[in-house]
């Protein structure tokens, strides 16, 4: 389950991809297409200025469901590999929060699988966001925005 990581510290998506590809993908001459998504923290949500965020997860269940999402993508598309990295804990605006990536021979498969990983993660993986507002108040985010 090296292709699923929940991390407590900073997420550098490009360094993460370079490291992950170095395990054989960079030399894999069957890879024609790599699709990547990075979600970052904005300083605005539902019209309010947000100064910080805490991301909670359910250790064990989160990783299990991220792995299941990757497995499902592998059944639906022709993929060589996938990666999901998600950050938890204290987060500030501009910080990358999540990285999803799909490697395939063909771009259609890579594009669609990468987007699927992200949408499934947002609807099924147990993570919760609590925002700190500019006035110091806190609130739990109650639902995600639609992605299609």
């Amino acid at each position: 389950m090296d292709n699923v990581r929940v991390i407590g510290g900073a997420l550098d998506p490009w360094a993460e991809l370079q490291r992950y590809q170095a395990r054989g993908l960079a030399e894999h001459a069957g890879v024609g297409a790599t699709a990547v998504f990075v979600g970052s923290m904005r300083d605005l949500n539902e019209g309010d200025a947000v100064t910080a965020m805490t991301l909670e997860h359910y250790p064990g269940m989160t990783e299990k469901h991220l792995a299941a999402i990757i497995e499902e993508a592998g059944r639906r598309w022709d993929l060589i590999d996938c990666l999901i990295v998600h950050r938890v804990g204290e987060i500030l605006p501009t910080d990358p929060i999540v990285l999803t990536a799909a490697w395939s021979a063909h771009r259609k498969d890579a594009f669609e699988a990468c987007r699927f990983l992200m949408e499934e993660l947002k609807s099924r993986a147990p993570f919760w966001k609590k925002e700190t507002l500019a006035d110091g108040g806190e609130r739990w985010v109650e639902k995600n925005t639609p992605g299609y």
Partner: protein
Amino acid sequence: MSLTVRFFASLRERLERDEVVLAPGDAATVGEAWACATGGEAMPANVLAAVNQDYAAPDQPLKDGDEVAFFPPVTGG
């Protein structure tokens, strides 16, 4: 043995409880585990439940040693 009931995120904060341990006889289903661990509160429609880290419906039966979790809609990514 026993049943462990866990709460996450806004539910954990509102109910002011993180983990509750029940005797297996206390709750035969997910819904009964909710009622027992919250002191009889009705289960809100948008609360999600998991048994042993898989999503579960309120009528799912429980067995000794199960871990039951309750949490609000997920908002990661």
